[in-house]
C-alpha cells in the first residue's frame, strides 16, 4: 500500500512545462508535441475532470462518513432520542458509560475476549493452510477450491447451520465428540462456551485469509530456498528465516484488518443468541449470562431498541478511539517485525 503512494509522490506535479522553443520537444515528432501542449493547456480542465471523476466518492465521503462522524460527535453530548428531545448534557453519556453502566464493561470484555482469541487463531490457521496448499501435489486445485469455499458463504444461513451443528444433544459436533468418549459442552447455551462457539465458526472460513498468503508464497523466489539448501538449512530454519519473514507484510495487513473487523462482531451474536435471561439486561438480548453481549450489540440495543441515540453515539466514538489507538500501535510496532524486502532482493 505504502509503496504505491510513495511512487506516486515521486512523479513531479505539475508536469514540466514545455515551450515552443524547447529543443527536446522540437526534436520530437509533431504529434507528440501536439499532445503534450494540449495537456499543458488543459491543466485547469484536467483538474476539473479529476474532481468530476472522483465526485461520487467525495459526496459519499462528506455525507456518509465525515458528516455523520461529526454529527454523532455532537449527538454524543446530548440526550437525543431521534423524536422529541435533544438537550446538551455535557459529558454525562461518557460518565455513565465508564462509571454506571456495568453492561458496557461486560460488552467490552466480551469483545476483547473474542478479538484476542479469534485474530491470532484465524491468522495462524490461514498461514498454516496456505503452507499446506503451496506444496506441489497433483490435485492441489481441488483442495484450494474446497478450502476457500466456506469463506464465500456468509449471512444468516451460515449462522443457522452452526447453531444446528453445535446443538447440544443432536448436533454433529457433540455426536463426533461422543465417538471419542468426550462429553461435549452445551456450546451456545453455556456462558463459558458461547464465545468459543463463534470462534470455531470463524475458523471454518479461515480459507478467505489463506488466499492472500498463498499468493505471497508463490511469489517467493526458489533461489532463496536453493541457497538455504546449499548452506545445509533444515526445514524449520527455512521456515523461520525465509518463509515467515516473507509473509510478515501480509500477516501485518491481516492482523490490522481482522482486528478492526472482529471488534465489530454483531450479526453472528444477534442471530445466534439462544436462551439467556432477558431480565438481567433490562429486556435486551445478550445471550446466556450476557456472554454474547458484544460491544456493538450493546450499542445496537441502546440505539435502536430504546432509542438512546446520545449514549449509543458516545459508545461509537469510544469504539472509534480504541480502534485508532490499536491501529497506531500496530503501525508503530510494525517495523520491529515486518519485513518489506521484495522477492529476490535482500
Amino acid at each position, binding site marked *: 500500500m505504502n509503496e504505491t503512494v510513495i511512487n506516486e509522490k515521486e512523479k513531479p506535479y505539475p508536469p514540466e512545462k514545455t515551450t515552443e522553443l524547447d529543443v527536446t520537444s522540437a526534436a520530437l515528432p509533431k504529434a507528440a508535441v501536439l499532445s503534450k501542449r494540449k495537456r499543458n493547456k488543459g491543466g485547469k480542465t484536467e483538474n476539473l*475532470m479529476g474532481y468530476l471523476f472522483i465526485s461520487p466518492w467525495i459526496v459519499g465521503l462528506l455525507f456518509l462518513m465525515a458528516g455523520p462522524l461529526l454529527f454523532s460527535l455532537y449527538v454524543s453530548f446530548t440526550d437525543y432520542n431521534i423524536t422529541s428531545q435533544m438537550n446538551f448534557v455535557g459529558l454525562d453519556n461518557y460518565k455513565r458509560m465508564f462509571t454506571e453502566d456495568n453492561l458496557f464493561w461486560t460488552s467490552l470484555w466480551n469483545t476483547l475476549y473474542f478479538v484476542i482469541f479469534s485474530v491470532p487463531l484465524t491468522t495462524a490457521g490461514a498461514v498454516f493452510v496456505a503452507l499446506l496448499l503451496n506444496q506441489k*501435489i497433483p490435485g492441489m486445485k481441488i483442495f484450494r477450491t474446497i478450502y476457500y469455499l466456506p469463506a464465500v458463504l456468509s449471512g444468516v444461513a451460515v449462522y443457522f447451520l452452526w447453531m444446528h451443528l453445535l446443538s447440544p444433544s443432536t448436533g454433529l459436533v457433540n455426536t463426533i465428540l461422543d465417538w471419542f468418549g468426550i462429553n461435549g459442552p452445551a456450546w451456545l447455551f453455556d456462558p463459558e462456551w458461547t464465545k468459543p462457539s463463534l470462534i470455531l465458526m470463524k475458523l471454518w472460513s479461515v480459507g478467505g485469509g489463506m488466499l492472500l498468503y498463498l499468493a505471497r508464497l508463490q511469489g517467493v523466489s526458489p533461489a532463496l530456498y536453493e541457497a538455504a539448501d546449499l548452506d545445509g538449512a533444515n526445514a524449520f530454519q527455512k521456515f523461520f528465516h525465509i518463509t515467515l519473514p516473507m509473509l510478515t507484510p501480509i500477516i501485518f495487513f491481516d492482523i490490522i484488518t481482522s482486528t478492526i473487523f472482529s471488534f465489530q462482531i454483531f450479526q453472528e451474536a444477534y442471530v445466534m443468541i439462544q436462551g439467556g435471561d432477558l431480565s438481567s439486561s433490562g429486556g435486551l438480548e445478550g445471550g446466556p449470562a450476557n456472554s454474547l453481549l458484544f460491544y456493538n450489540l450493546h450499542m445496537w440495543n441502546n440505539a435502536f431498541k430504546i432509542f438512546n441515540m446520545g449514549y449509543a453515539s458516545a459508545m461509537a466514538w469510544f469504539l472509534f478511539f480504541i480502534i485508532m489507538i490499536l491501529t497506531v500501535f500496530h503501525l508503530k510496532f510494525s517495523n520491529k517485525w515486518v519485513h518489506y524486502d521484495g522477492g529476490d532482493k535482500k
Partner: protein
Amino acid sequence: MNNEVKFYQTRRFKTKTKNTLVLAILILGSIVLLIPLWWMISTSLKTPAEIAQHPPSLIPESFQFSNYFEAWQTGAFTRWGLNTLFISVIATIGHVFVNSFVAYGFAKIKFKGRNALFVILLATMLIPAFVTLVPQYIIFSKLGWVNTYLPLIAPAFLGSAFYIFLLRQFMLTIPDELSEAAIMDGASHFKIWWHIMLPLTKPALIIVALFAFNAAWNDLLGPLLYLNDENLYTLQLGLQTFKGNVQVQWHYLMAMSFTVMLPTLILFFIFQRHFIEGANLSSGTKG
C-alpha cells in the same frame, strides 16, 4: 559400505513421505470443512423424527424433498427472493460503474490534491462501519428513507474505498500510451473510460461485481435496520424471522438456509477462478 545412503535418507524418499503427510492432512481437513455443508443438506431432507434420533443418522433414511416446498410456503419467500435479487443487482451495477469511474480519476487523471485525497481514501478503510451506523440511520430516517430500499442502494452509487483501491491498482498496470493516443484523436476522459478502460479492466470488474453481489445478497445489517414492512424483507431478514416463528424445526430451517446459500454457491463454482484472482489482486498490491 559406510558411504552407502540408506533408502530413507534419499531425497526422493523424503519428498515422498512429506507429500504423503501433506496429502493426508489436506484430505482430513477437506472432510472437516465439507461435513458442515453435507450435514446441512442431509438434515434438510430428513423427517423431524429422524432429526430427533440419538445418535443422529449420517444419511437420511428417505429423502424428504417436500421439506423444501413446505418450508418455502411458511413465509413470503418468493417475494423476499425477488426483493433481494432487485437490491443486489442494482447495488452491483452501482458498484461496478461508479467505483470504476472514480478509480479512473485516481489512476489516470493528474489533478491537484490527488495524492492527499487518495491517502484519505485509504484511511477511510480503517474507520469501523459501526461508528457511522447510528448517525447514518438518523440522516436516512430524517430523509424519510426508512422502509425503502434507498439506504441499501444509494451508498452503492457513492463509491466504496476498497473497490476503488482495487480497480485503481489494476488500472495503473495499463500503459498510458493507449489513452494518450486516444487523447490525440480528441477523445475525452469520458470516452477513454467508457471505450478503453471498462473493456480492459473487465477481469477486475468481474471481481468487484462478484464481491458486491455477494455482499448485498448476504447483508443482514442494512435490511434489519431499515426495513420494517414484511413485504419489503430480503431473504436474510426473512430467514432471520424463521428463528422466532418456527419452534426450531431444523429440517425447514436447513432447507431454507441451503436455498438462500445456493446462488452464492453457484456463482462461486462458475467464477471460482475470479474469486481466487481477486484475492491475488488485492494481496499483490499490498506487499
